[in-house]
């Protein structure tokens, strides 16, 4: 699974996710990547999120929308909301994975509870971060 979230100069947020799914999957199994609210979500009022993880749990936890909702209804920061969902809600269900996100102010988050996540971020000044391991 691959994903991207972006904030543009007009203050618009967007999120996208693309995947080949799960090895050896049968019966037309679909994971969270194409499910709006689970694998992908964007709302100019809060944040843009793209997920990668154990699809069944990311659907049940509605991960991407949940992070936006925690910001919207509980006033959490993007970092706090991402931590709450990825380090608590998803593992409590038995799932694992991670998200990338950016909020309306350009704050960037890469939160995951697995050994690693291929990830990179770049801000307006061109500061680049690339990571693979925890």
């Amino acid at each position, binding site marked *: 699974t*691959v*994903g*991207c*979230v*972006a*904030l*543009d*100069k*007009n203050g*618009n*947020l*967007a*999120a*996208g*996710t*693309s*995947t*080949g*799914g799960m*090895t*050896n*999957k*049968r019966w*037309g199994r*679909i994971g969270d*990547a*194409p*499910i*709006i609210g689970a694998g*992908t979500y*964007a*709302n*100019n009022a809060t944040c*843009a999120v*793209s997920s*990668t993880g154990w699809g069944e749990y990311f659907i049940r936890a509605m991960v991407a929308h949940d992070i936006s909702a925690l910001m919207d209804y509980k006033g959490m920061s993007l970092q706090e909301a991402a931590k709450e969902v990825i380090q608590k809600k998803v593992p409590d269900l038995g799932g*694992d994975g*991670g*998200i990338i*996100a*950016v909020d309306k102010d*350009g*704050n*960037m988050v*890469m939160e995951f509870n697995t*050994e*690693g*996540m*291929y*990830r*990179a*971020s*770049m*801000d307006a*000044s*061109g500061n*680049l971060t*690339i990571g*693979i*391991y925890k």
Partner: protein
Amino acid sequence: NEFAIVIHGGAGTILRKNMSPEDEAAYNAKLEEAIRVGHDILKNGGSSLDAVEKTINVLENSPLFNAGKGAVFTNAGINELDASIMDGKNLDAGASAGTKTVKNPINLARAVMEKSPHVMLSGEGAEQFAKEQGLEIVDPSYFYTEARFKALERVKASEENETARDKSAFYDPTIKDSKFG
């Protein structure tokens, strides 16, 4: 930040000890190539939607990631691809699931969002829509990579072993075979 971009290439049990320096360098290089495509679009005043689509295209076109070329295989030994995109400006969204011949599924998801009255299309209908929208259609073999196919064979073998092992638990010497129930 006035603008910003973040990407991922998947999460999981990615351990330093399991990755050669060459592989690590290849992943780092591809991640940097992809994020610079999107950053340039944003820096030049482009839209976040364009940045998301073009950045993901780079990752879909690389065999390194489980998306587009390099996708994993289903039990039937084929590649079924899914994608979704969302516009924070108006909560518009598009998604496609289970396509086998659309080269860049994220482009299809965006076409569903912008050129259809729906949010999600799947399977043959999604493929039909992709053709009507003039998106690049490829032979399913385009998505094949040796590494992912071998991964499928490993998973199947381990599954069969398990069944074999379970089956041996029911071995009945009188019929010299296994019987269940």
